[in-house]
């Protein structure tokens, strides 16, 4: 196993000297996992995440990860990492698109079992006819699983968010899974400059005996929980227990807010927030929005940008305050349904100001001109 020194997360994230590498998003995943002191990774290939977990396999071969194997399918992978996490080790996996959908049952299961799994989702289309192209629609299906959801704009975000996700997820009072989402192909398969910490340092190990649930040995007392379904009875007492359990999971996500602020600098990032017209976006739609806002500025039109980094917990209070005086909030998205604009409409005053688009899907790119057209229209109104 390569020599790596354990350092405090704060040192890893802010103080350690960083080297700039010109790498793909998939390679950024590898570099994050290399420094994350991961015990176990399980993979199953699906485009566009295949290369990421292939590269994670490479660093297992180099000795950076204790155990690694290929599962039978995505459901099996997500079940396997659940078992590993219940056993008290730090685990990582990744999937995307139809793989996400195939494994869907396991995500609320992870949350309910309070498992601090970090999973990267590289999003793509999920519909028939089959497409492997970029699309963020799978995220709509995960919004109410209970997991924390972070959305990376680029490879740098992806690297940083994966490392920080372990620290956020493993806080005793949080201790629920974190999904780190990046737009497939646009981030995973393109090269970008990524500043990484030295490879000879790593995060502190996971502390399973500070978990809010016991480390589980399925065969021995005191915790044969899964063989004794705990509240699967038809009576009020059982319903009340299950309700309290679900509330506690919601509470755990609430408790993540200060840690997301501490490690990611906030649930959102804002530029030019005083502008009458704001653009709210997540993932690579942020990059396209930056371009559009720069083009608008050349025409003498001011627009602001809200980059959403955390979808769960959702920055409702922040967005209510930021958008209070805006004339319009434009929400460009890489999906058909416009789930982010729906989320925003639910929290802002006067939701008619939310412009649900432009939207592209099925693998289409989003020319900044589309966003610029909307900025022009609402700036002139």
């Amino acid at each position, binding site marked *: 196993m390569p020599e790596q020194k354990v350092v405090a997360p704060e040192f890893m994230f802010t103080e350690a000297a960083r080297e700039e590498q010109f790498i793909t998003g998939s390679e950024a995943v590898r570099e994050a996992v290399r420094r994350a002191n991961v015990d176990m990774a399980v993979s199953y290939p699906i485009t566009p995440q295949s290369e990421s977990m292939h590269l994670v396999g490479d660093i297992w071969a180099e000795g950076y990860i204790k155990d690694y194997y290929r599962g039978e399918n995505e459901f099996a992978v997500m079940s396997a990492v659940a078992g590993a996490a219940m056993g008290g080790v730090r685990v990582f996996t990744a999937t995307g698109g139809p793989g996400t959908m195939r494994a869907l049952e396991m995500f609320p299961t992870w949350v309910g079992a309070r498992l601090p799994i970090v999973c990267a989702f590289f999003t793509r289309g999920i519909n028939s006819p089959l497409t492997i192209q970029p699309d963020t629609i799978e995220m709509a299906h995960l919004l109410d699983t209970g997991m924390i959801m972070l959305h990376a704009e680029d490879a740098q975000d992806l690297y940083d968010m994966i490392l920080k996700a372990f620290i956020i997820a493993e806080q005793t009072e949080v201790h629920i899974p974190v999904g780190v989402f990046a737009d497939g192909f646009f981030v995973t398969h393109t090269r970008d400059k990524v500043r990484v910490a030295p490879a000879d340092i790593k995060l502190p190990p996971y502390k399973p*005996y500070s978990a*809010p649930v016991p480390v589980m040995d399925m065969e021995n007392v*005191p*915790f044969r929980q899964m063989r004794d379904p705990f509240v699967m009875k038809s009576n009020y007492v*059982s319903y009340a*227990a299950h309700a309290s359990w679900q509330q*506690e999971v919601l*509470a755990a996500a*609430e408790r993540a807010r200060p840690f997301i602020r501490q490690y990611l600098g906030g649930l959102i990032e804002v530029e030019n927030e005083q502008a009458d017209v704001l653009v709210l976006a997540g993932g690579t739609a942020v990059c396209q929005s930056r371009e559009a806002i720069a083009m608008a500025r050349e025409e003498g039109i001011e627009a602001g940008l809200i980059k959403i980094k955390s979808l769960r917990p959702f920055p409702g209070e922040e967005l209510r305050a930021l958008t209070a005086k805006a004339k319009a909030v434009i929400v460009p998205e890489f999906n058909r349904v416009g789930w982010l604009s729906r989320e925003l409409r639910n929290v802002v005053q006067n939701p008619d100001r939310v412009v649900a688009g432009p939207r592209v899907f099925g693998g289409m790119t989003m020319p900044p001109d589309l966003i610029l057209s909307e900025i022009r229209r609402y700036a002139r109104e």
Partner: protein
Amino acid sequence: MTKYRVLAGPEGYLPPAAACEGIRLPDVGWALIEGRHVPEQEALSAIVDKLLSAKRPFFFPGPNLLWEWKEGVAEKASALRKLADTAGARVIPMPDYRPKYPMINPAIEINPNHPNLTIWHNKIDVCVLAGVHCHYANVALKIIRGGTDCYTIAICGEAGHEDANITLRNAGIPQIEALTAMVAERRRLC
């Protein structure tokens, strides 16, 4: 600033998680009394008041004190036992979290999935959870607050519990021994 207060129940059919009502966990060195952030010392005094004014105080030590997961557990468990004895409280251990269906014996058992049964049966008016894994403690605390009038105290070795009426955080042997000394002193003066 939230207006929600974590008061003794019965709060109703389905009380909310206090964290979702805006109650935040205390910082290190601080504690919560009914959702208010207070210095730890103030919370220690409030715990002593509650224990000594209770008619039927009970301690519910959980697996983190009953099973020797890590160093120091036995010493901490002994310290908690001394506190319970000094306060004149009874002890019902929570050795695991498996429900015992069709029915537990509420006179001698408690389970985080239906703690109200034990509290109702024993007419417990103040209870202290210690060494209960945080998830299970919160599950139990909401059920207790929803259906009973029992006043809940959490002596937590981790980050604390918004759903308890009083919670300490990072509580170890020093806090437990301080409580024991305070209880003994108050008893001596009475």
